[in-house]
């Protein structure tokens, strides 16, 4: 995974895990790696890895069973909410970026329509 070294690492790893949860790569109720394993997997500081789980727990996205480890929430509604929030955030970033280019909201929205699903994937090289 590519990190932006000027942004908090814990937030970047949280986003990566959230993405795996909303896409179903990590299933609801699935056991997450231990803090140590997470640190090794992402090559990050173990204290940062610990913080990732603490923050995810605070947000209700995962929970800890004493002596068993950390698990993805079993609450489908929670996952749906998370997906909504992440989608909103991406949309906000897009509109914000356009605004900073001096492009109106209407033009920004219209522009999205020009991209068919195929052309979007092609541009990403997939």
């Amino acid at each position, binding site marked *: 995974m590519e990190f932006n*070294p000027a*942004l*908090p690492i814990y937030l970047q790893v949280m986003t990566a895990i959230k993405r795996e949860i909303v896409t179903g790569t990590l299933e609801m109720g699935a056991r997450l790696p231990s803090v*140590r394993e997470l640190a090794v997997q*992402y*090559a990050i*500081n173990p204290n940062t890895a610990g913080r990732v789980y603490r923050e995810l727990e605070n947000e209700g996205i995962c929970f800890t069973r004493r002596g068993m480890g950390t698990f993805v929430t079993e609450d489908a509604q929670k996952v749906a909410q998370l997906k909504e929030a992440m989608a909103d955030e991406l949309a906000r970033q897009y509109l914000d970026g356009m605004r900073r280019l001096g492009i109106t909201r209407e033009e920004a929205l219209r522009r999205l329509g020009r991209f068919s699903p195929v052309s979007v994937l092609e541009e990403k090289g997939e």
Partner: protein
Amino acid sequence: MLECREITKKYGRKTAVDQVSFCIEPGHIYAMLGPNGSGKTTLMKMAVSLVKPTSGAFYYKGQPVGVDSRREIAYMSTEPYFYNWMSAEDVGRYYQDFFEDFSMETYHALLERMELDPRTKTKAFSSGMMAKLKIAVTMARRAKVYLLDEPLNGIDLLARDEIIRSILEAANRDVALVISSHLVDELEKVVDTAIFIRESRLADVCEVEALRIMQGKSVVDRYREIYGHGGEQTC
């Protein structure tokens, strides 16, 4: 746990370390950063009493460092320190004789993962293999403090990944790791605290996630500030 208290080291007229103080606590991974010649190696050698300070001292658990503290402080120097007739297996035995906390089992597991054959003589090792061997033999100790002098220097990307992995696997709540490097970005994600040494002096000690959160700066950004111009303390 390991405290550097107002240490100065002079070699003749040259001051290698100038009034440096800091504290190393368990549960943290520290980067000791600074250009070549800034005093990082001298500091590490003083922490394991291989070099005597001109004034000031290192304390481990409240006692001046010496033969006793070396049982719990593992130090990896930059220069290779094995006889070239030794095989990787011999190196392990040599360490086992020296250090009570050395685990042959951990050593073999590390060698295997790093794809080093225990039977190979060290004289046949490339610089990357030698770097991995040094890490394996150091991390196979169950020490409380690990001082690693330039473990990532001059080796390829994949060997670096392996070394970082071994470092992270050794990290836990009871252990402190100090990694010196002049390659700042390599350690960016791995450490939680950065100690900056500039021209023999302590320039700054930064908690790196706090640096990102509060100031939106990377360790590399801070490094440039310190060594590029002036080096005023901001965190």
